[in-house]
């Protein structure tokens, strides 16, 4: 799991670095508040992915969806965990019912910003 996370982060960061030196390991690590050697080990899968907060910061840096990076790291964001803990039966049922549904069907259930009368 951590290897998949590290590979993904490294490929994304290196792709960005091709066009911008600000995406070196050192500079990205500095911006998210970790040691460059730690980020390097994470990318090589030699250590476990960082904390949720650092992964979210990394997602922001790399213009990635934080939930996707968290999933690659084997984590679920704390707000989702809290939502499930508050209504475990309801959300457990919901997720189990929806897990096999195609994306377009799931998207129909996502809360939309309601448009009204202008």
């Amino acid at each position, binding site marked *: 799991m951590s290897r998949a996370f590290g590979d993904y982060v490294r490929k994304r960061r290196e792709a960005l670095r091709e066009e911008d030196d600000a995406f070196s390991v050192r500079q990205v690590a500095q911006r998210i508040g970790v040691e460059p050697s730690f980020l390097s080990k994470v990318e090589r899968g030699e250590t476990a992915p960082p904390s949720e907060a650092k992964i979210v910061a990394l997602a922001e840096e790399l213009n990635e969806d934080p939930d996707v990076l968290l999933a690659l790291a084997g984590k679920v964001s704390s707000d989702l965990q809290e939502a499930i803990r508050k209504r475990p039966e309801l959300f457990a049922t919901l997720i189990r019912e929806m897990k096999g549904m195609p994306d377009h069907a799931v998207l129909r259930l996502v809360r939309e910003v309601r*448009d009204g009368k*202008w």
Partner: protein
Amino acid sequence: MIELKQDRLIFRFPEVHDEARVSIEFQRTLRIPDDDREYPLPPGLGRFPLRHVDDFVANVPGSWIEHGGVMLPMYQSEALWVNFSGGYPCAVKVATGKIDAVTGKTLRPGLGRRPQNYVAIPEQPWLDGYCVEQGVIRQFVAMPLGAGYTAEEQITGEAEHGGLQVLVYPMKAEAYERLRSQPMEFGRSIFAGEMLCRSATFEGMGLAPGGRMRQQIFDDPHDLEDWDQAHVSRCFVHLANSLVWRQITDEHPPTVPPTAREYANAGLPWFEYYDDHLSAVRGSGILDKLKSVVQLGSEKGDVPVPENASVQGMPIVELRKGLRKGQVREGRF
């Protein structure tokens, strides 16, 4: 469909293309001096919080519920810029108080080229204000609706709508596939769709023209026929005064941003954005005739902004200068 996720509006158009998706956020920033000098781009200070108006039915005006959409908190005379993210081409119309920020005309559905009444994404990464001249905008600055400062009031004489409106049109799938077959024509992200968002305030707030800033509104490099005008999403973004944000949401609003002078004195960077491959639209004669907040305040005998000291000699970071088309840009930090 429009989804509100982590203070971003995510617009998806799965019926047009699987990759048709665009993200729009509203960035806090410092208000540049309104002194008729031209300033570079100020930084982004983080996203404004966005909330569904439907979640606060008991605390917001009925008109907000009628409009639907989302809301964000702004202090009076606070500035804002709109950040577009995505590589799937889309055309975005932005209006304040239903006045088109590019042309100065009343907001109407549909895209036009004479004059161009939208910005093309991903070529246009940001929009900071009203297009008053070719390569010059006047910054979006929040002012109370009814005081006469907003672009809407100056043009229509009415304080009816307020807020900010954004409309996004996706590129047709076949046009996108044609473009995608041409390497290096686009960045990585992919967004598409037509969206419209508008924001207003609790007691009625709108956006008014502030200081002058160097920012090009790029000519659309695509054909008008490439845009899918049959698929439109829209969203109304209401502007709540930060002083009442907590009453509405029980959340603290963001802190007051630094002044331009405080920011400049700290030696922090400003920005210039270049794209040598694109030309810029001409400014709107309608918008160019508007009076800025400070100009109008002076005529009224008001002091509408608390601080307006000029700044100069600030460090400037040049973005994309010399980059080839399609190269990834650095953002504004």
